[in-house]
Every structure is written in C-alpha cells, then in structure tokens.
C-alpha cells in the first residue's frame, strides 16, 4: 500500500570517509522522525559489503572516498537505493543528476536543506519504486572519459583493477574474464559493453571473443591462410580475426 510506505520509516545508510561528516549527518537525521539510520560506512569497500545486507531505501553518499568513489559504489550494488550525494565538490553535480540522484548536498549544508532532500527522496520512492541507477551510472561514465579501472565484485569482496594492468579480456557466455597480473577475474558484463567503455587506442577487439591490451603484444604471426595469432609478452597466444587484424594494423 502506497500510504503505508509513505508513513513507514525510511531505512537510511551514510557512506562517508570523514568521521565528523558522518557525525553531523547522524545528528541531523536524529531529529527526522521518518528516518531510521540503519548503518554507516567509512569507505566504498565497506559500503559494497554491507549495503546488500542492510538493504536501505535511502543512501547518503560522499563521492571522493578511498578505493571506490561514490559513483563506483553505486555501480556495484543491486538493487540501487535512492541516493542523495553529500560532498564539498560541486563539479560532480552534473554527473550525479545524470545518474538520477535524488539530490546533491554541498557541504556544509543546513538541516533545512537536508529536510528538503529527504522530502524529495520520499516523494521519489513513493512514485516509482525501482530506480535504474546502476546501468545509468555506467552509461553516464561511458559518455565521458574512458574507464580507468575495472571493478569486480566477488561475493562481498571488490577487486579494483587499473586498466593498465589488464593483459586481455575474454568473453565467456554472459561473463567476461579479465586477465591481469597473472590472475583471472570473472565479471558479469558483455564484452561489447566493456569494449565501449575502454580506451579504444589501447584496447582492441581483435576477435569475437577477445579484447587485447596492445602494450602486451610481443609479435603477430601468421597462423593459417586467413588468420593470425598474437603472441603476448608472457608467451600466451590469442587468435586474431581478419577484421581484428585490420584494426590492430591501424593502432600499431
């Protein structure tokens, strides 16, 4: 029942790496009758680990944090809650609204301003339950600069892989396996989607199943009449299709 949901307290979580910032928000929220503060996280890793258990309706999220930024946290949690960003930096505001944030609070903010944001969140949650934040987060970044690191969630752990450590990426059904630092990480994403996010000058789709980091290529050898193989610096061999070879020739 919508009316019930409207009167039921909202489960809220604060994610901020600065103790005083969490403390201030906690204190402000203490005076809001309809808010039930169920948890606090001091960094993005904690958030990714705790949020699936806490299942909050509303997230107060800092952007600049160690390890994972606020945007990256959103990318990793399912289902995404309603988000109110709280940060001292105004240059992220545009991106925040691109991913349909409920509101954007600039530190330091007043309790009145916070009340406005909370009202807006209640309104939003009342009208449409599901917010497609995560896919929009990816989309928003896709329009800007290329991906700098790939995030992989394994259970409650998050691996952060800077793209320059990636050797190659292989398609495996609905997953991709990312080969970096001699290890293999599985990520639920389509190869084509990941290809669109990476820097096309450094990462080339050489085959239906492979994206290769061109810095890792030692040499290219003829394999059969129409196909070639790339020999990586560590000796591994990857198949190259004819159209893949055309793309590679342009980059090398």
């Amino acid at each position, binding site marked *: 029942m919508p009316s019930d949901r409207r009167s039921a307290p909202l489960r809220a979580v604060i994610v901020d790496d*600065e103790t005083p910032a969490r403390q201030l928000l906690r204190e402000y929220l203490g005076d809001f009758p309809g808010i039930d503060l169920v948890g606090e996280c001091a960094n993005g890793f904690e958030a990714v680990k705790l949020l699936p258990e806490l299942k909050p309706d509303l997230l107060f999220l800092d952007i*600049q944090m*160690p*390890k994972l930024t606020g945007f990256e946290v959103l990318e990793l949690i399912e289902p995404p809650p309603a988000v109110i960003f709280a940060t001292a930096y105004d240059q992220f505001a545009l991106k925040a609204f691109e991913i349909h944030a409920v509101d954007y609070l600039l*530190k330091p903010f007043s309790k009145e301003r916070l009340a406005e944001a909370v009202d807006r969140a209640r309104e939003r949650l009342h009208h449409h339950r599901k917010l497609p934040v995560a896919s929009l987060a990816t989309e928003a970044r896709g329009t800007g600069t290329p991906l700098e690191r790939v995030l992989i969630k394994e259970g409650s752990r998050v691996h952060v892989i*800077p793209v320059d450590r990636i050797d190659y990426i292989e398609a495996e059904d609905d997953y991709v396996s990312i080969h970096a630092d001699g290890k293999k990480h599985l990520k639920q994403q389509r190869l084509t989607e990941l290809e669109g996010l990476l820097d096309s000058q450094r990462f080339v789709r050489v085959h239906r199943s492979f994206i290769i980091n061109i810095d890792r290529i030692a040499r290219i050898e003829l394999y059969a009449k129409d196909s070639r193989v790339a020999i990586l610096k560590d000796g591994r061999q990857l198949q190259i299709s004819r159209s893949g070879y055309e793309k590679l020739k342009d980059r090398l």
Partner: protein
Amino acid sequence: MHPLLTGRGTIALYVAAWLVIAALIAALLIIPGTFGWSAAAMLVLPMAIVYAFMCLSSYYLCRAFPLLSTNVLKVFIVLLVAAVATSAVWVLAGSAWAMALGSLFNDAQFWERYRLQYPLLFGIGVVLSLLVAAVHYVIIAFEQARAAERRAYELRLLAQGAELKLLRAQIDPHFLFNSLNSVAALISSDPDGARTMSVRLAGFLRESLRLGAQEFIAVREELALARDFLRIEQVRFGKRLQVEESVTPDAETVIIPSLLLQPLVENAVTHGIAHLVDGGTIRIAARRTAARLIVEVWNPCDADRPRSKGPGIGLQNVRYRLSTLYGSDGSLEVEETNRYFRVIVSLPSTAER
C-alpha cells in the same frame, strides 16, 4: 639633453668625425691655392668645431617633426630652411674670424679671398647640417626602439610578478568547505573542539595571506604553516593522517619562495592519504648540503589509484616558480611508485633569516 652630449665617448667620436670634415674642407681651400697650409688650418679648424655644435640644435627639430607621423616633404623643407639659416650664420661668423686672422697675419687680401669662397662654404654648410639631421633621425629611431624594448621588459616583469603572486595565493576552496563542515559537526558534540578548529582555521588563513604577500620567507615559517594545515586536516581524517618531520636546524633559517611547500603538503593529503582506507604517514624532510637546500615531501598512496598522466597543476606551479626564480639552479623531482609518491625540491641556500 642631447644624446651625443651625454657621454665623453660619444662627444669625442663626434668631434673626431668633424676633424676629418675640417681636413676635407681645408683641402678644398688649399688645392686651388686659395690659402696656404697653416692659414687654411687656422681658418677651418675653429669653424668646423663651432659648426659641429651648431648642427646639434637640429636634434630638437627632428624630435618635433618625427619622420613617421609627418609629411616627408614638409620635414625636408623645415630642415632645409634650418640648414640654410645655420649655414648662413656660420659663413658670416667665419667671415668675422677671417677678418681677425687677416689683421693677425697683416694680410689685407685674406678676408677678400675668404669672401670669394662664400658659395662653396655655404653649400658645404647646408649639406653638413642636413647630414647631421639625418644622423639625428637614426639616433631617435634607435632610442625609440630601446625604450620600447625596456617597456616590454618592464611589462613582462610586472606580469610575471602578478602571475607569481597569483600562484602563491591559491588556497583550495574544498579545504575550506570540508573544514567548515567539520566545525559544524563538532559544535554540538565537542564545543571546545569546534572553537579550537575555527581558531586554527582563522590562524591558517591569516598566516597564509601574510606569507603569501611576501616573496620570500624562512623555511621555519613555511613549515609552521604546513603544521597548521595538517592539524586542521587531522580533525577531518582522524588517525588516518599521521605526520613525521625531520628538519635539520640549519635548514630552518634558509630563505625560500613563500608558499612553495604548501602545495606539496596539500597534494600529499588530497592525492595520498585521502585515497587510503587506513591512511598513512606523511614525511616532511629538509636539510642543507653545501650551498643547497633539499626539501622532501613523501606520502604513501593507493596502488590501485588511477595513474595521473603527468604532474598536477600544483606541482607544475611549483616547478614554474622555481624555474622563474632560479633558472636551472632550482629543481623539482618526482618519484612515483605503486606504494608511495615523493617530491624532492632542491634550490640554492644562499640567503638566511
């Protein structure tokens, strides 16, 4: 003041040129047999020296009628009239001198013979006067070029000074916003802490304005400011931000460009500590070796951070200031690994305070 009369060298050169001219005029009088050697010399030498200084007066005419902004024909007419007048006066003055010499040598024909040379001397006088005027225009053009060059240099110095001042004065506004947020948080839970924090913040701002207004300060002052800054940041970051200092006493007194280290310390916090879940220790070191001051700022950093493509704007500013003030004598080097980031600044330690 006439530019040719400002130095002994230029006067000597000018007079020497006129001695040559005097010799040529004398030759014109001797070769046809009008005058003997000594008589020609006695007549022409004083006349030439006098005329040398008479011709200088056209400098002011040349200044009044600049070549570029005046009709060239008009300039020529003005100068020609002046040359005719000057030459006439000169020939008549020469006539008086010839009369005096005539009575000195007891030669009744002396003046008569001089009088016959009126047209020749008058012509020479006009040509010489115009020649000197031409020299004046060359001198004026040269002076203008030099003045323009100096003005451009002064402007450049002024612009550079303003730029350097601007580079010194940059305070990151986010530092202020975050600090004010901490004060807001402390007000109810720890009123004393809030008071201390606002006093420290005010102290830091006042001190950075005061030091930023000076071009050079002592290392001691710069380090005190960095300490203020780090104490404020420690309220935000808590135990995540630790600081170690190792500064030798002889380094503290060296004079350095003001607020040179502040951006390095700020970077160590915002690009280092702020990205680490458990934080770490920033190390600041300063020492003197021979005639140099070496300052190092070291901070741990996150191995998974996105790598910067080059030095950030803060480091670029410091490098620019060093090269502007010390040329190749000042340097900033960066050592970057997966685990830490280190900046080493080296500059001459000539001045102390």
